């Protein structure tokens, strides 16, 4: 794995949302994710995990401190990032394939080449669908797909423009346990194949430990990183690993940190 220099860095970041009371959502938040690394951020609810996502993708800018992505200070939306959320947010009037093409209609340089390279882009989308087990589902509408299939589509949409950074905000939170584990494997394989940097925000400690190279634990609001835990389970990891005592110990340890963070 090409784990090298820092790719996403937040340094001493304070942030509060405009309006209302200006209580800080995050305070003194520092985190550094290396290129090609899989990072997971866990913490009690309302700890500012989603704020972290918005800061790292340039949807929000910090009150204090700095955010750097790919060596550049973030001052506008980071176009090299793909995002997926708990809700698949697919457009019901577009087929699955057309949903996948949406980012390409927005982001440059694909945007201006859309007309000319439509066939090529569609092919790319179909390949991506195949790689997450949705071969030949491209012509269906999102509402004809199951929840898990919709979430796979949402992941594909986040990846279609071949981003260097993938931001996932509880992407499997709404799925049943079996589907969730299936999708863990999907995302594990995608990351292994593409060497893409992933930041996963989640409530699920097993998910974090199974997928991540490093797990960051955030404190309750205003959020900051209180613990950083390297996960040294060998890769490629099989789902079986989640039943080993080693794995359970790490989950247990992290759980202790969260309990403390909630107080």
């Amino acid at each position, binding site marked *: 794995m090409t784990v090298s220099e820092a790719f996403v860095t937040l340094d001493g970041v304070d942030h509060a949302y405009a309006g209302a009371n200006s209580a800080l959502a995050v305070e003194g938040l520092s985190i550094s994710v290396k290129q090609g690394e899989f990072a997971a951020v866990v913490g009690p609810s309302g700890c500012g995990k989603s704020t972290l996502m*918005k800061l790292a*993708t*340039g*949807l929000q800018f910090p009150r204090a401190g700095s955010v750097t992505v790919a060596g550049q200070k973030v001052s*506008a*939306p*980071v*176009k090299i*990032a*793909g*995002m*997926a*959320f708990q*809700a698949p*947010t697919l*457009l*019901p*009037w577009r087929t699955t394939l057309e949903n996948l093409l*949406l*980012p390409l*209609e*927005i*982001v*440059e340089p694909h945007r201006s080449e859309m007309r000319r390279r439509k066939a090529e882009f569609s092919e790319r989308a179909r390949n991506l669908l195949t790689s997450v087990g949705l071969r030949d589902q491209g012509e269906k*509408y999102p*509402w004809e797909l199951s929840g898990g299939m919709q979430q796979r589509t949402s992941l594909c*949409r*986040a990846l279609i*423009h071949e981003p260097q950074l993938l*931001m996932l*905000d509880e992407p499997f939170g709404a799925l049943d346990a079996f589907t969730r584990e299936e999708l863990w494997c999907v995302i594990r394989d995608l990351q292994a194949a593409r060497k893409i940097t992933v930041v996963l925000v989640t409530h699920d400690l097993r998910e974090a430990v199974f997928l991540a190279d490093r797990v960051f634990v955030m404190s309750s609001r205003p959020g900051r990183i209180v613990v950083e835990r390297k996960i040294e389970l060998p890769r490629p990891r099989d789902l079986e690993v989640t039943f080993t005592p080693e794995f359970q110990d790490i989950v247990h340890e992290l759980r202790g940190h969260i309990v403390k963070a909630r107080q």
Partner: protein
Amino acid sequence: MTRTNLLIKLSPWLFTIGLFVVWEAAVHIFNIPVFFLPPPTAIAQAFVDYSGPLARNSWITLQTTLIGFALAVGFGMLLGLLVGWSRAIYAGLYPLMIGFNAIPKVALVPILVLWFGIGFVPAVLTAFLISFFPIVVNVATGLATIEPELEDVLKALGASKLDIMRKVGIPRTLPYFFGSLKVAITLAFVGSVISESVASNYGIGNLMLQAQAQFQVPLIFAGLVVLAIEGIVMYAAMAILEKRMTGWAQRSGFAQA
């Protein structure tokens, strides 16, 4: 087709016929005078006797309504997009629109007459003024309820507000928009008939007013029936349009059950 399905298909006709039968019977049983409540047969007779004026005037009312409605669609869509575009415009225009909508439109007719004289133009404008509001509100609602996550996904890719509007906002507003057309077309009839009865020499509204002056009660009711029929036909046309344009939004079996 099963028996139940057949029954559902037939039931609108059965209920309508039933209403007229009960009406006719009631008039005869209780000996209600024709000038108070004419029986359906007398109304039908009025249709035969006055077929010329009824046809001419209903055509005028239909035209008036449709032109006013078309204006409302164009203007309502534009204003809805504008209101949905920015919170500042929304905050600024909303109280004005509520205030304007609260004004009974019949109160505007004298002003319109002052400006445009009696006849066709005030009727078109009344139909327009009364029917644009639901279109504006629905279009703006469609835009205001875009999922914030989806907005984030697109913004992170560098999408402009116009991009989000074109790719997401407008398509997702269409079901609301077409839904509002059904309400708007019915209101447009209200507007044109109000204006016709107050300030016009043509149209069903005017015809009913004259029939009233001459105590031709069956003709008044014939006018009502004409309006009801035009209303149903236009409503059905809007419903079909809605279904064709936004089939993706109507996949639930709920409404069909």
